[in-house]
């Protein structure tokens, strides 16, 4: 019973943390290259989810559903993921070109608020084009629940965690093995000097936004499969929390962002059973709605003891990718 209870929450936390980790990566990468946070990133996650919605509806109408299906659901899912990541990457590139490149020499504060404004523009244009009512994300694959000794796992949960970890490993390989990845690392090392030796600043910046946005789109689609109701403001609080994960991981640290994302999910989910246990032990009546209050107080405590995050470096321009 208690072991099951713990394992069940652990599985829930893994799924919840995958979303934070995928989105936190986008914050961290942009920070390490440009030394600023893209506050529109949460809304790019939202745009990615809506693009995924459009693409999957399109694919379903092309290849049929149910008995008339030409292709199995998981093929459609892979296609949706790839097409939407590709399209959302362009959204990221446009955001960088319109919102960030013209302001690269501007004061930091101006560059910081562009993200907020772009975020609002993305939310309101969604309302303008789609009317603001909530939409259901099509379930491309059948949901199956497995009961493993009292612990309930669905095929989607397993898939979401595996795809997220796969994408993180792929990103790691890209950054550490390819020439482009090396250019990104060099830029993260020093974004003033490195362009002088011939690394194209604009290309690298655009590429960083593209990769970050593609990962956010993947997170959006996986999110749609797990929580199938989409609304235009879904990226706001979620984006802020992923931003917390990025900081908690250490600014600009890729590995830190991933680990902190999972950690944040773990803290959030585990707070609920912890509240229940405390209630039982001391016969109190604390509601599970205090989850975020307690969870983020814990995060604050961690930051007090590790002000540079889990993997951040103190007083250094050297940011690791």
């Amino acid at each position, binding site marked *: 019973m208690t072991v099951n209870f713990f394992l069940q929450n652990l599985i829930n936390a893994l799924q919840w943390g995958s979303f934070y980790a995928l989105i936190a990566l986008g914050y961290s990468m942009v920070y390490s290259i440009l030394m600023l946070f893209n506050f529109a990133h949460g809304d790019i996650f939202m745009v990615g989810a809506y693009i995924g919605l459009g693409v999957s509806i399109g694919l379903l109408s092309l290849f049929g559903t149910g008995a008339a299906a030409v292709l199995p659901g998981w093929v459609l899912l892979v296609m949706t993921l790839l097409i939407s990541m590709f399209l959302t990457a362009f959204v990221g590139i446009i955001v960088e070109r319109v919102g960030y490149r013209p302001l690269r020499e501007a004061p930091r504060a101006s560059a910081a608020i562009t993200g907020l404004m772009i975020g609002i523009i993305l939310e309101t244009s969604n309302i303008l084009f789609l009317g603001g009512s*909530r939409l*259901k994300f099509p379930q491309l694959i059948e*949901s199956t629940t497995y*009961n493993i000794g009292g612990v309930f796992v669905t095929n989607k949960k397993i898939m979401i965690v595996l795809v997220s970890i796969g994408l993180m490993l792929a990103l790691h390989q890209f950054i550490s093995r390819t020439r482009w990845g090396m250019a990104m690392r060099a830029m993260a090392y020093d974004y003033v000097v490195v362009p002088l030796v011939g690394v194209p600043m604009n290309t690298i910046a655009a590429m960083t936004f593209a990769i970050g946005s593609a990962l956010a789109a993947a997170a959006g689609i996986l999110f749609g499969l797990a929580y199938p*109701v989409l609304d235009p*403001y879904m990226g706001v609080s979620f984006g802020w929390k992923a931003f917390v994960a990025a900081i908690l991981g250490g600014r600009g640290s890729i590995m830190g962002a991933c680990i902190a994302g999972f950690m944040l999910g773990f803290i959030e989910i585990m707070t*609920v*059973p912890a509240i229940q246990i405390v209630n039982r032990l001391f016969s109190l009546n604390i509601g599970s*709605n205090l989850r975020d209050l307690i969870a983020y107080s814990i995060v604050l405590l961690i930051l007090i003891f590790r002000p540079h995050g889990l993997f951040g470096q103190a007083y250094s321009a050297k940011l690791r990718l």
Partner: protein
Amino acid sequence: MRKLSIGLVFSLVAVMAFTFAAVDAGAADTVKLGFNIPLTGDNPDVGASSKNAAEMYLKKHPTVDVGGKSYALKFVFDDNEYKAESAVKVSTKLITEEGVLGIIGPQSSSQAVPAGEVANNYATPMISPWSTNPNTTLDRPYVFRGCFLDPFQGPVAADFATDELGAKKAAVLYDIAADYPKGLAEFFKEAFEGIHGPGSVVAFESFTTGDKDFSAQMTNIMMSGADVLFTPQYYSEVPLIVRAAKEMGWTKPILGSDSWGGGDLMGLCGDDCKGYYFSTHYAAAGAKGDTKAFIDEYTAAYGKTPDDVAALTWDSLGLMVQAIKDTGKLSGDIKADRTKVKDALASIKNYPGITGAMTFTADGDPKKCAVVVKINDEGKFEFFKSVCPK
């Protein structure tokens, strides 16, 4: 220049005064009713349903006979944008500028509570068709409503869970940051523990508005060994809650409240919600008599099944018109007539509405039955049981 502008202002005022005078003069043989409804904003569906029902009513009953004299009915639709402050403005405008005899709306409690204050202060009868919060009519003799209240709906759900679902232990999952779910969750808990003893609500789990992940709360609920889950949430959250429950291996019944019926629940939830129950004002599927006639007519006119907002608006309008007839004679003095209509409303007995027979209590709340519907395999809300106040 200055003289000119003063002159301009005076002539404008004169024109406006003349226009109002003209309006009042023309109002001799008409009865004007105002609608304070959300035509834009967060919940335009609610406003559209209200307006549809009202326009259908007007087409069917263009006049009202009071004491042998025929008056033309005239409706004024005004948009409260689903905001409390706009609802207050709209009611003030309807009463002071349009000179309406009575007001239908606002629909939701968040607007009906403040707008009810205005109507009561100006001594104008108001019926909110859909507001279930007790404060809307509390200590306001001029304010009435067309639906039952949350303190009644809570016990309805508790009785239903006990009698029909055989539940001995219940779990509740609700949004603590919204008035309606919070109030209803507490009424349910009180009623259920009244039947089964303290502690029979084995899990009382909450979240806050905007949360998407309920897996942790559902894990607690699963481990609590509850027989039924009660979740008085809105159509945007229900699909996520139902999904989380299924993913945690929940196979027992889930019970909801009238908020399930508003909005596009089935469009968002799909197959996941089939087989579950909720208490509401009326059931469109399997309706009979006048209710069926209303549904057929509405469906023919607007191409969709009327939701509970449309049905309750229809009934509230019917109540208001009945009260106007019951006054016996309209004096033409709008203030005196408003009070007469209020008195007539308060004394209506067993009004045969399409959502059930209605008699107002001293507070202006109708005594009427609730309906429990089951979401059937076709995704329709099917009549399951009628539960009347004891």
